[in-house]
């Protein structure tokens, strides 16, 4: 058991190292000079003043050091919990921007992933049981899962927001409101949350339902199901066993899909101008904001890694075969 988790942690550590390195590298490989665009924004006319400002900025962000020094510095800063200062929203620290955006992203991601997984599995299991349901749930699921996130998001924003005017189409809350811990603000928040959540939820739902239906059918044909039927066990017991065993590959699927779901959420946020990490990343790319981009990606990488680790732990708990494998079998 300890060796298993030791190995897992090592793999996660390596992944984290690689991810941070790539995160550091990618913004710096983008064309364009962030300091130049900051200077352009500052509208300083005199060449001497401009030069002084350039030196100041380059020194502030450490761009005057050799690249390997910059790379090591970024690791040092990371361990101090310092994400640097945003270039785009200068001089706001990146950490502040992130802590403002992350709750919105999590509020979208966690419910849409978990609820779509649970309901999708139930729906798939039901579809495997009844022909009528199978003939309706399956085609709908195929359409849903093949739908690109941003297309469904745009369609829903247009339909529910513009044509019917039921839900707001943009923002995390009304522009006329200031964030506060009051009921009206909370309701407003919820109202803005519905459409982005629903579009994420629907696309993910289809995939889980299809997966579950197929695995359940496979499980119901398996030897243990046949044996139980031959011994006259009621369908209820057999279905319970089949469902539980079919959930296992779905858990693995969840771990695999996590990254895709996060990417989908980022795109959806942009469609709805939702103030989460997705919108932040878009702004960072448009403004060549190295530090903000690095910080946002770091959050996502950390989130996906932690979620994967939790799934690993859950898997060990629910599938005895993994535990037995660790302890060694007895003859």
């Amino acid at each position, binding site marked *: 058991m300890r060796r298993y988790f030791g190995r897992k942690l090592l793999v996660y550590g390596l992944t984290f190292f690689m991810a941070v390195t790539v995160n550091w590298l990618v913004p710096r490989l983008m064309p364009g000079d962030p300091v130049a665009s900051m200077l352009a924004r500052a509208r300083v006319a005199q060449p001497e003043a401009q030069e002084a400002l350039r030196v100041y900025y380059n020194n502030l962000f450490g761009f005057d050091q050799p690249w390997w020094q910059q790379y090591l510095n970024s690791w040092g800063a990371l361990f101090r919990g310092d994400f640097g200062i945003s270039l785009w929203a200068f001089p706001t620290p990146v950490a502040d921007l992130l802590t403002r955006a992350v709750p919105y992203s999590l509020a979208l991601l966690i419910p849409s992933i978990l609820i779509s997984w649970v309901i999708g599995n139930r729906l798939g299991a039901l579809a495997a049981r009844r022909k009528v349901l199978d003939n309706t749930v399956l085609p709908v699921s195929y359409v849903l899962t093949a739908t690109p996130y941003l297309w469904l998001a745009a369609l829903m924003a247009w339909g529910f927001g513009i044509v019917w005017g039921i839900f707001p189409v943009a923002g995390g809350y009304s522009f006329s409101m200031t964030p506060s811990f009051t009921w009206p603000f909370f309701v407003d928040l919820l109202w803005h949350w519905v459409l982005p959540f629903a579009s994420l939820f629907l696309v993910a739902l289809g995939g889980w339902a299809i997966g579950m239906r197929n695995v359940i059918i496979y499980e119901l044909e398996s*030897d*243990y199901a046949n044996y139980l039927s031959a011994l006259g066990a*009621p369908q209820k017991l057999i279905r319970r*066993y089949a469902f539980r065993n079919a959930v296992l590959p779905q858990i693995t699927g969840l771990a695999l899909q996590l990254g895709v779901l996060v990417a989908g959420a980022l795109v959806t946020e942009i469609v709805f101008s939702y103030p989460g990490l997705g919108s932040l990343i878009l702004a960072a790319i448009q403004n060549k904001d190295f530090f903000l981009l690095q910080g946002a990606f770091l959050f996502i990488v950390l989130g996906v890694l932690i979620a994967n680790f939790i799934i690993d732990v859950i898997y060990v708990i629910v599938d005895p075969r993994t535990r*037995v494998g660790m302890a060694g079998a007895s003859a």
Partner: protein
Amino acid sequence: MTLEVDDLRVYYRTLKGDVQALDGVSFGVKDGEILGLAGESGCGKTTLGKALIRLDGRMKHVGGSVTLDDQVLPIGDDVKMNPYRFKQVSLIPQYSMSAMNPTRKIGRMVRELLDSRKVKLDLDELHNRLDLVELPREVLGKYPIELSGGMKQRMVMVISTLLNPSLLIADEITSALDVSTQKAVVTTLKGFRDRGFVKSMLFITHDISLTNQLADTIMVMYAGKLAEKAPAGVVVNAPKHPYTQLLISSLPEVGVRYADKRLTGIPGNPPSLLNPVPGCRFRDRCPLAFDKCAEEPPPVEVEKDHVVACWKAA
């Protein structure tokens, strides 16, 4: 008579038509009797075994009846058959290695199975039977994956016979085992019968020499029909049906060298059971076939307990 099967017909539905896999088979099994059911693959022996406990989705009960302990089994009705399964008819499947739910501890699975059948688990009895097949009691706290193949086989044997069924169907249970384990399984099954755990048994196999060690009576089937049924010794030593004779003669004998005389087997293949031609189904391969074989030979009791379906034998 524990079991009485009368003119049982079970067909497989296919797109091309009905495959007459079991076409009018009648026989009986007495109290305490072990009936060995032999024949080559495709002869209908597994179909017969399944018909007695659970037809699969493609199988159709066309005619005939099965009577167990003076009750007619509703074999064509999956739901009505349920109360009889496990309690009166039970099965040791071909796939013992994967017959148990991999994600449940064995003890818990047994309890859940018995609960679902509204039977109280007699833990002492279960322990006794585990002792009998030399399984440690700890297996109940283990997952199937933690057991070796032989242990799983014995565990399934214990589960299947836990409610003392009148009829136990053992379908090709020794096919995947090595010879010494086969012998142990056969001995265990005999022990189950002698202790009264099972009243009678249908032992399905393609291995005639193994059947001979276990069975009181051997029934040989060919192409969905009964060919010959007689006490084990008679079938092996003095078979009357030409198919049985050829089957027995194609078995290698221990201590005989086959350098000069090659084992020949039976030339030809069994007929297609999709719209089979009338008459004896073995006549294309039969060395004794003559004109009369175009008519179907009825099973005739030539001696006491010796039934043969062949014009030449009668």
